[in-house]
């Protein structure tokens, strides 16, 4: 079924409500609404979309992180929220730039309890710290791991192994 709202309607409503917290619009191949927002405003924005009478964006599809090492200062990590309004069949993405030295953002587990593990996984793999998250610990890797593996500078393979000779594996 077709979604009831177009991207511009929702974008204008967001722009009108949050003004300069909305940084820029990005069009993607699957033309879902993708908006760059200020990290400290993200929590209110999601709360506002959740309680919005018409939009009713009340389903959190996904939280994930992306690492762009060669972005300029303070924009190396990007946190992506995928939100979805089931009643109106409308999907949107909120993206926030975070600096790599203190990637801190407010947790949204108070709005969506689904965010609990998603945030723990993003913390585990990217090192993004979610303030007042009930139990921010590593979820997929061992607790004794000291680095965040999904960042681009880390190798895929386990560096402590000796039996694979790099020459034969094109490394």
């Amino acid at each position, binding site marked *: *079924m077709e979604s009831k709202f177009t991207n511009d309607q929702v974008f204008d409503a967001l722009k009108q409500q949050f003004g300069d917290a909305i940084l820029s619009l990005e069009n993607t*191949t*699957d033309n879902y609404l993708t908006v760059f927002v200020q990290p400290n405003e993200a929590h209110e924005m999601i709360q506002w979309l959740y309680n919005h009478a018409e939009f009713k964006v009340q389903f959190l599809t996904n939280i994930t992180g992306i690492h762009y090492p060669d972005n300029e200062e303070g924009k190396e990590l990007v946190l992506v929220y995928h939100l979805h309004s089931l009643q109106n069949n409308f999907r949107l993405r909120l993206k926030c730039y975070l600096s790599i030295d203190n990637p801190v953002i407010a947790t949204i587990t108070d709005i969506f309890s*689904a965010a609990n*593990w998603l945030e723990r996984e993003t913390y585990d793999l990217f090192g993004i710290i979610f303030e007042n998250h009930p139990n921010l610990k590593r979820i997929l890797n061992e607790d004794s791991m000291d680095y965040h*593996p999904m960042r681009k500078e880390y190798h*895929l393979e386990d560096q402590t192994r000796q039996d694979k000779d790099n020459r034969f594996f094109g490394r």
Partner: protein
Amino acid sequence: MSEDLTKIDNTNVPANMESHDTIEGEIATLNLGPTHPATHGIFQNVLKVDGEKVLSSEQTVGYIHRAFEKLAERRPFHQITPITDRLNYCSSPINNIGWHMTVEKLAGIEVPKRVQYMRVIIMELARIADHLICNSVIGVDTGALTGFTWMFIERERIYDMYEEVCGARLTTNIGRIGGFERDFTTGFHEKIKDFLATFPARFEEFNSMFERNRIFMDRTIGVGGISAERALNYGFTGPNLRAAGVDYDVRVHAPYSSYEDFEFYVPVGTGGDTYDRFCVRQEEIRQSIRIIKQAYDNLPEGPYHADVPGFYLPKKEDVYNKMEALIYHFKIIMGETPVPAGEVYHSVEGGNGELGYYLISDGGRTPYRLQFRRPCFIYYQAYPEMITGQTLSDAVVTMSSMNVIAGELDA
């Protein structure tokens, strides 16, 4: 609560636990641990138990974290398919075809009608296989092993059909970006006709063993229930969400691969408990059979793959005789598929719910970032809330009715 989860101490009781007088006995700590017959996979639950009643549960997952997403950043696009079918290995064709559709959506490839119908048939077979294993395992956990042995024979017949199409049984790596590597063989046609003819009767026999079985109903009705709002808040999708009463199904909500041509309905439960999850999955198997029948009866003629030489390997005789085919063959094998830069999120209705692929590509050989939206990982968080206050044996049945697959849980 002790910091290191591998050490359980039952000395200090969590603050929110009311203290019990000695006549009632102390709160026991029980470990539904990594190797346990009840956890059909490898995850750990440290249960605080009073007698038989579960008071609280602390989960540890990630025991088979294999770093799929990091691995996907090192492989060209058509080499990622073998990874995707190790996500939910009970219904791997759905993962493969979902991944192919994501790349086609990014590259803007139009797939002919015949391929869409073939894909629907294969995906619905995979859904049947996935639900069969889940429902027969609920039977095993409530003590009836016969269902499992019966339904595994049916699953073997579905494996035979996969072998006709792609040569593999479980981790199928089925299809290619742009279609299939070969058309349906005559062996496949015979097998699917035989399957459609005999499977429904055997399935009804399996169903009659459980659906109106007094013991099974007593063991599952009202067990591990969750309300619709809590399910939505926990990000439930798939049969578990439909059992709670929300009729969200990606095939209907955002139809892909010409699902809109088929007429089927989405079963919805009321209570969200284990019995509803069981019945929703049983009904979905019947609906899948209906879809396969409709798709197989009017399977359109035409090519079994899109005409995209940049992605689809040319025929062997062309490779030996024609220059372009040789160049295409070489480029594709070395991973130089012309995938444009871009960002796309595409989701399919997997065995456990909305299986999403968030793909960001910078035009290079390999994806810049690929994230899998794994339904198991998201809805398994609700497990403590569903079993608190229930007895231990209900906790076991609830876990198997949620169909948590370890591979998809910690990708």
